[in-house]
């Protein structure tokens, strides 16, 4: 039922989503922490930039990434200077794009969880000799566990469902940038509806399971808040 091309695309998609989610947890957690704790004027603008991908059509993001990461764009110039080469049409490029694209889905749940914790437990930790970094790992992170869980699931799922951005900067290269959503698009465009159904149906089931897991693992509203 699944062709090697399909399997390649599925594997690539999972790899992309996995790497992206991991990076996002690393990058997104400090951002979420800062957003949750800061009283700076910059909170608004930074929060808005992080949330942009929720509002923007993915093609806008993809278009600008294509320009920025291209040989005439600042990012492209930098990556070429750094010896990485250009990012479009590469797996690394997709990862960079996906990190931007899925950022709000990781940052916001973690930020909300940090905000829900409030100052209380952290002040308590400080009076118990925990340095701010220590308190972050020993108190804030464990207390924000549901937020991290939501962030991980949403970040992964949203990257799997990514299409417009990949389309714009991917170049549809088998095993490098041809992810499932693009392949479905190709199947549909080529009128190969049977093959499209297998993958599209799979995506529907996947999305359902992800959301189901989210609700089961994280019964928000019943326990917290």
């Amino acid at each position, binding site marked *: 039922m699944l062709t090697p091309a399909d399997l390649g695309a599925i594997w690539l998609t999972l790899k992309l989503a996995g790497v992206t989610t991991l990076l996002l947890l690393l990058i997104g957690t400090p951002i979420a922490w800062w957003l949750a704790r800061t009283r700076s004027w910059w909170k608004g603008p930074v929060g808005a930039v992080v949330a942009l991908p929720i509002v923007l059509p993915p093609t806008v993001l993809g278009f600008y990434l*294509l320009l920025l990461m291209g040989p005439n*764009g600042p990012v492209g110039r930098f990556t070429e200077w750094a010896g990485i080469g250009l990012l*479009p*049409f590469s797996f690394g490029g997709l990862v960079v794009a996906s990190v931007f694209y899925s950022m709000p889905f990781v940052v916001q749940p973690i930020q909300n969880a940090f905000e829900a914790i409030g100052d209380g437990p952290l002040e308590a930790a400080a009076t118990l000799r925990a340095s701010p970094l220590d308190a972050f790992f020993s108190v804030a992170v464990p207390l924000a566990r549901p937020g991290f869980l939501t962030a991980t699931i949403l970040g992964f799922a949203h990257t799997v469902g990514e299409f417009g951005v990949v389309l*714009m900067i991917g*170049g549809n*290269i088998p095993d490098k940038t041809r992810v499932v959503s693009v392949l479905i698009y*190709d199947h549909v*465009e080529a009128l190969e509806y049977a093959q499209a159904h297998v993958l599209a149906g799979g995506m529907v089931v996947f999305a359902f399971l992800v959301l189901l897991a989210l609700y089961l693992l994280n019964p928000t509203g019943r326990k917290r808040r």
Partner: protein
Amino acid sequence: MKRIAFVLGLLWSAATLADDVQVAVAANFTAPAKQIAEGFEKETGHKARLSFGATGKFYAQVKNGAPFEVLLSADDSTPARLEAEGAALAGTRFTYATGRLVLWSSKPGYVDDKGGVLKMGGFKHIAIANPKLAPYGAAAVEALTSLKLLDVIQPRFVQGENIAQTHQFIATGNAELGFVALSQVMKDGKVGAGSAWVVPATLHQPIKQDAVILDKGKGKPAAQAWMEYLKGDKAKAMIRSFGYEI
């Protein structure tokens, strides 16, 4: 509520009373179609409502009840198929333009006028439209096959979903060069920017773009008028100025 319904009703009858035609236009034909529509409206008093997109998508939409009355396809097989399936009116099909393939780079002097750059290599990415979906992509593959370069060059393919996106890859410099439609890089009768090699038509099957009246255009004078205008000399001149042959 009643008043709103009345106003909506008025608008609706106004829209249907005016003679307009819904045309689905292949993305590569966007610019000429706009110009033709202007002339068409001026000459006939009808109104042309143009939608631009991928031919494959139009096919799926037409089969699922989209309100298009005329299709200007990027190929000749889709109109034939629609006709065979009874979704288009038999006998209305004709070739309105034949596309020319061009190897293009946004860098001046990068592509020589014999296409020698293909043999020399030295590029990392070459953009083509998805050959499965786009006639220009299929023609590019044919041309490379004729030149016996396909195996060498294929690993460097980056594919746009259509030639518009392919053009974008090249225009932004992310791909050093690529195959697009001559109509995309023509400006005032010559290649506007960068460097190009017009691929000889002998290297690939002609890229015939056919038009056809769809089921929904049956008995609509505006659809008929559009087809007539498209066949006329004025339209042909416009089409040629955009780099198509006819």
